């Protein structure tokens, strides 16, 4: 069947609308692609299946992509998966390269998006059976592999970084242990509020946005150096595809990691960009420059987090198992229409399957068009005086936190508590990125650790004897740690010599 017979102009219109709304929601700190899809899910009941998928996939692609705007321009990850985008994106903005950074991020996003949808289209059934072969032991080791980035980004203060990461894991475990419904690590009197632990989004934007605003307030809200630049006169802010020269392997590797991590059920999307960034740093010719405003790091993060979209759809459509929290909501859209996703979905619904792939193509193109050509307007955000933009950010953060779980006031208090911690942490040597990576991955690491032990009857050797995948992952983990250690020693020597 031809493409235009499967999707109509109305589908394309809905897809563009979804992308547009998704970008806005992704760009607002505290609002995510997951939230966008959850809001629009009930409305899809009145639409045809392909039209509703067009709208929801548009929201998904837009929501994931929009997160790069505040990450690059304001050092606030719009979504958890854009955490690593701040590492190099914001330093580029500080150097007066904000617009260029945005365009690099958007281009990397569309490359990651197209890479993953190509993999989805060509290899979905095969990869689904590969994903099934990944046991809880393998998933635990993948999370550990992602956690090794803490060692990489803690250069100069390895102990401080590791402490911060462990503290993040510790805080993430507060709440009810799902296997026996017992509360653990619970502050007295907060059992009701913290039954599910601290919500990720308020913690994330509290540490980054509110903490940063308090820091700036302490310093008197002076204009930053990049706010004084005249971008029209600066050549270095110009985007060119030449930036991607020499980044082909980085882009392909990061897109591949994003797609691969995305397709593993239960391993969150944030792990995709964290793992990709970690490996970019390990393979970089100039790892010391990453984190200082290198397009290399930005390309890695953005191609990986858009790569996970196609990846997460693989287990959803071929096994009926969502790959991440967003596709967990997407599954509801299929069920509302009475369509069962699972191992027979593609063979039973060839037109719908083609429709999904086509809407993914449309959504990625829509994302590129809408973002790339309007980015110069977005980029002007950085020139708004701080005394105007900061109250607006605080307001958006409060609204986003309140809305993230359909109106829980404690999420707003979480935002503010972690905002204050975000202000205090750097002063006492706690590294915020390492803390957050520990916080994001802590729960997943525990779940798969416990699942592995339950499966093996408590035998710890299962982590070393599970099979070839585990052995390969151990080699990667050890390699990553050794590399981070050597890099740390090198940088200490360099610091001493200067």
């Amino acid at each position: 069947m031809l493409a235009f017979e499967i999707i109509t102009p109305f589908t394309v219109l809905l897809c563009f609308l979804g992308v547009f709304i998704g970008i806005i929601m992704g760009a607002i700190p505290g609002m995510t692609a997951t939230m966008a899809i959850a809001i629009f899910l009930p409305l899809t009941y009145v639409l045809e299946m392909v039209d509703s998928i067009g709208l929801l996939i548009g929201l998904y692609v837009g929501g994931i992509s929009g997160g790069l705007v505040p990450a690059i321009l304001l050092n606030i990850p719009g979504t958890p998966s854009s955490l690593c985008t701040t590492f190099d994106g914001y330093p580029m903005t500080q150097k007066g390269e904000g617009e260029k950074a945005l365009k690099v991020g958007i281009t990397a996003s569309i490359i990651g998006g197209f890479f993953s949808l190509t993999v989805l289209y060509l290899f979905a059934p095969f990869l689904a059976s590969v994903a099934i072969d990944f046991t809880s032991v393998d998933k635990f080791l993948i999370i550990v592999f992602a956690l090794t980035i803490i060692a990489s980004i803690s250069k100069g203060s390895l102990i401080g970084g590791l402490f911060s990461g462990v503290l993040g894991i510790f805080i993430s475990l507060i709440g009810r242990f799902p296997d026996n419904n017992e509360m653990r690590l619970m502050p007295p009197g907060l059992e009701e509020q913290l039954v599910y632990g601290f919500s990720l989004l308020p913690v994330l934007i509290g540490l980054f946005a509110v903490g940063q605003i308090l820091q700036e307030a302490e310093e008197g809200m002076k204009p930053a150096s990049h706010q004084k630049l005249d971008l029209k006169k600066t050549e270095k802010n110009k985007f060119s595809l030449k930036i991607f020269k020499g980044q082909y392997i980085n882009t392909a590797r990061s897109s591949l990691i994003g797609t691969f991590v995305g397709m593993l059920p239960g391993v969150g999307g944030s792990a995709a960009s964290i793992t990709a960034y970690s490996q970019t740093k390990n393979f970089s010719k100039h790892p010391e420059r990453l984190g200082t405003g290198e397009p290399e790091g930005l390309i890695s993060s953005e191609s990986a987090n858009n790569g996970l979209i196609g990846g997460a759809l693989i287990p959803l459509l071929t096994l009926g198992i969502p790959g991440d929290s967003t596709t967990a909501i997407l599954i509801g859209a299929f069920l509302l229409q009475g369509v069962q996703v699972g191992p027979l979905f593609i063979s039973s619904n060839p037109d719908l399957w083609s429709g999904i792939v086509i809407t993914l193509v449309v959504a990625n193109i829509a994302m590129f068009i809408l973002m790339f050509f309007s980015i110069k307007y977005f980029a002007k955000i950085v020139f708004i005086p701080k005394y105007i933009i900061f109250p607006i950010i605080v307001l958006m953060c409060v609204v986003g936190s309140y809305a993230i779980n359909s109106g829980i006031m404690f999420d707003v208090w979480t935002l503010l508590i972690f905002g204050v911690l975000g202000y205090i942490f750097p002063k006492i040597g706690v590294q915020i990125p390492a803390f957050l990576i520990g916080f994001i991955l802590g729960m997943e690491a525990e779940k798969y650790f416990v699942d592995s032990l339950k499966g093996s009857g408590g035998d710890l050797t299962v982590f070393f004897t599970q099979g070839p995948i585990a052995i390969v992952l151990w080699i990667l983990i050890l390699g990553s740690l050794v590399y981070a250690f050597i890099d740390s020693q090198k940088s200490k020597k360099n610091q001493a010599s200067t």
Partner: protein
Amino acid sequence: MKKMMALVSVGSMGFMLAACGTGDSGGQGEQTSGQEGSSTTIDPNRVRTVIGSSSTGGDTYQTADAATRNLEEVLDTNMQVDAVGADRAFSEMSGAQDDGSTIMYFHDMAYLGVEYGSFSEDYELENWTIGPMVATNPGNAFLTSADAPYDTMAESIEWLEDNPDETVSVALEEGGVSEIVFDGYYLWAEEEYGSEITDRIEVYVTGSQEDKNQALWDGNADIIHGSIGANNEYTEDGVEDDIKMKFLGVTTEERVDGFDIPTFAEQGITVDGEEFVFEKEFFFLLPKDIDESYTTALDNAMAELAEDEEFAEALNKNTYTVNHMPSDEAEEHLMEKRENMQSIIEQAPDLNDLAK
């Protein structure tokens, strides 16, 4: 001084915004103006339905969505379903006003969770007004790998008897429907075959249906709890061998139309001399002191909806069925059902003793 003022003003702005929501969590912000102080008036403009599941892909959300989308037309109101999870749903109901602007929709776990100790006793059925019964998921089932050496739950016990060195592990969720049906199976096996057999039954405690499926595929569990709606796809011809499943039994009284799956009763599974039957039913819970006129309006609307063929078709798409009972009947039915289950729960083993 300027720095200090700026710091204080930014901080205080955030806290003021936070304080605007009042200290109470959830529910309160949803009230529609004009209704305060009028506890006998039903809010006709907006009803927030919190459900005891955080998933939008499960049977609770699906049936709640179908019911509320139709009920709002009959009641001439707006109904919004929020998948907030059991703890939050109960918590919000505890703080909800009596005007019916926040109500809850859930299934048997509402009282089983209290009986098993997973939920606070503050959430027991007596503390709510039980609303009308809406639907049943008749496909409450157990499954195993397609190549397993047994075809029914009863055969799994016979297989254990024939293979004294083997064990069987069952993946289930603590405190829910899957635990009560497992308890029925376990108690029957203990009574019929003795502890020599049941000592070799283990449980793999986990959460979502996806986790249970994965436990089966990983080899961490031999049998999983599931449902026809969620798992039938994996049992059909054409599914690859490494993920193919087969049903071992359903807990309904009669076989489910269109599916060749024996019931527990057919397999001879009994507890306390009675056939073990458990139907997973979905119903509304309302604030304890809600005005009777609200309950009556909801009952009438639900009765009208139960006759609607389109509603039945919407449920049947995912193998759910209409199961309407007005509030008073639903209350009597659930209290009796809970009493029957209490006997099983009292005799049941502690999952901690069976956990792998």
